[in-house]
């Protein structure tokens, strides 16, 4: 079985009941109760004012989690290639466009249109950080976290480069919510490196598996894992927070899951 190894140097997390990675670990390992509250998205101070005004939820989420991971690793975001993965682009923006296109006035605004692309967050990220590096912008419905992680570790191994991986999803409003019930925003960001270094926190070895994905015993955490595509990566974060060598299985496609061997550094 082919496996891919990378070192996690930085972690970012923002979601319902999670405000950052350091304060989330006690909840993930069960030392503190999980108390969901609506995700609070910070204003993206790193963007120029014009872009800041135009940025939607997915941009704010991406910048907050990505910058947490990169600063945690002590790196400059401009130096890192990136992998972005999400089930879809900004749901509120998509709803507003579809509503206008079904009306008599179809003149959607330029900002609405350029925010509608799946790579809007990647574009704003490069503007905010000055990163002229390659970025892969992916979508795989509920497999988005797994597809993004696989792409990221593949890039680390094939190109022997550090990378920032960002999996972010935001809420869909009605009437789309009834067809795609993503209730809130959640983002996970990881800085991955090809070699061990002083800032490495864990080594992960990723391979495809037929095994079933890990679930949370806590029902609220488990419903979160299922409800937001990016949250399918939460068992990996729990594995790291447990601070012991552990094998976790993450959701991916109907035909395969990802086995991730987590080893502390």
């Amino acid at each position: 079985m082919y496996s891919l190894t990378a070192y996690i140097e930085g972690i970012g997390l923002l979601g319902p009941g999670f405000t950052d990675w350091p304060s989330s670990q006690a909840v993930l390992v069960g030392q503190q109760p999980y108390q969901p509250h609506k995700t609070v998205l910070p204003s993206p101070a790193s963007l120029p004012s014009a872009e800041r005004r135009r940025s939607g939820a997915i941009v704010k989420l991406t910048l907050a989690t990505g910058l947490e991971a990169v600063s945690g690793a002590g790196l400059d975001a401009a130096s890192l290639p990136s992998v972005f993965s999400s089930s879809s682009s900004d749901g509120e923006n998509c709803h507003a466009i579809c509503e206008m296109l079904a009306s008599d006035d179809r003149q959607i605004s330029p900002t609405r249109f350029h925010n509608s692309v799946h790579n809007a967050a990647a574009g704003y990220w490069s503007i905010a950080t000055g990163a002229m590096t390659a970025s892969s912008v992916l979508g795989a419905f509920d497999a988005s976290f797994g597809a993004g992680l696989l792409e990221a570790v593949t890039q680390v191994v094939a190109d022997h480069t550090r990378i920032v991986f960002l999996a972010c999803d935001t809420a869909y409003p009605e009437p789309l919510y009834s067809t795609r019930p993503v209730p809130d925003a959640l983002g996970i960001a990881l800085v991955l490196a090809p070699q061990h270094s002083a800032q490495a926190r864990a080594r992960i070895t990723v391979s495809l598996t037929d095994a079933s994905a890990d679930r949370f015993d806590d029902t609220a955490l488990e419903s979160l894992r299922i409800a937001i595509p990016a949250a399918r990566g939460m068992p990996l974060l729990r594995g790291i927070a447990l601070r012991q060598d552990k094998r976790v299985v993450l959701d991916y496609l109907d035909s395969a899951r990802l086995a991730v061997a987590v080893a502390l550094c």
Partner: protein
Amino acid sequence: MTSPLLAQSALKPLLLSHFTTTSCIGRGLEQTLAALREGRTGLAPCAFDTVNLATFVGEVTGVDAVQLPAHLTDFDCRNNRLAFLGLMQDGFAGAVRAAIEKYGAQRIGVFLGTSTSGILQTELAYRRRDKVSGALPADFIYGATHNTFSVADFTRHYFGLTGPAVVVSSACSSSAKVFSSARRMMATGLIDAAVVGGVDTLCLTTLYGFSSLGLTSEQACRPFDAQRNGLSIGEAAAFALLERPPEQLDADAVLLLGIGESSDAYHMSSPHPEGLGARLAMQGALKMAGLQSTDIDYINLHGTATPTNDAAECKAVQHVFGPRTPCSSTKGATGHTLGAAGGVEAVICALVLQHGLLPAGVNTRQLDPALDLDYLLDNREQPAAHVISNSFGFGGTNCSLIFGRAN
């Protein structure tokens, strides 16, 4: 650690063992090549759906009549119908089945690009909302149609592929970048072959969206023309099967030799005015291919015919290649097929290599004197050993691909 801007390692060439494209200039390779030889455009005044815009589009005829296999009707939408139509051309589906026999269904990845996927399905559903509750109609299936992943999910289910699968959606670079994702995954040994390509179809979001930005022309687009004033949106499907090359190759075999990727970090909907990101992408592709700029015989430009794209791309090309490398944009023929453009133009590059035909940029009448390049206004019959294709997109995403003949 290598420089982050040029972190890509040298590429072991990959074989495009089969490829096909379907756009407004034709279904499959034969019709596409004939259209290029004749200098024919597929652009026509927009009569799509209820769109009321003075613009030209490259609509593929017969998409509405395509029927998906009965067990895959959940995926039914314009984008997957065009995907299916594209897969049926040039024996491509048979080639994928043969690859499954050879490698196994779990050893073949699916990497497809799209910008808007099946969003048309949602646009249409919003016209049929329940008047009281506002709910979308019960027959609307978001995940299998509108969602970004839909076309890759449809394709893997159609073939029964069980390996890695993903959609790349970085606007108009999407189906160029799929080659990069596939290349890396093949390099790690996780897969032995990859179905790559792109599919994008006409929808109101892009037609009205590009119009709101003032980027669509009221005429058929004229890349690099002094009078160019915007793009024409098209739709297309393009597919290639990537495999590791065998020891013995036909002289005509087409190889993927280099990929360069970059970001502008400049603006969401305007390219860097000096073409800085575009320059990095082309330089990255040359470096990975181990080629000099003088080795390139033809450049398939991004060439959207917007004033800013063509000016910025010209500066970038001049910086990397100087003004003498033959080049053209084929978007005057196909229209800008957005997330499918990289795939379509990769296939056109393969035809250029196999047939020694450097295609003229159709619709362009008088070259912009400010754009000093060897831009082809007439077809040139000339052998080409190495060609490069540029694909750039919203959000400042850039990708250049280099292809070469085996001999």
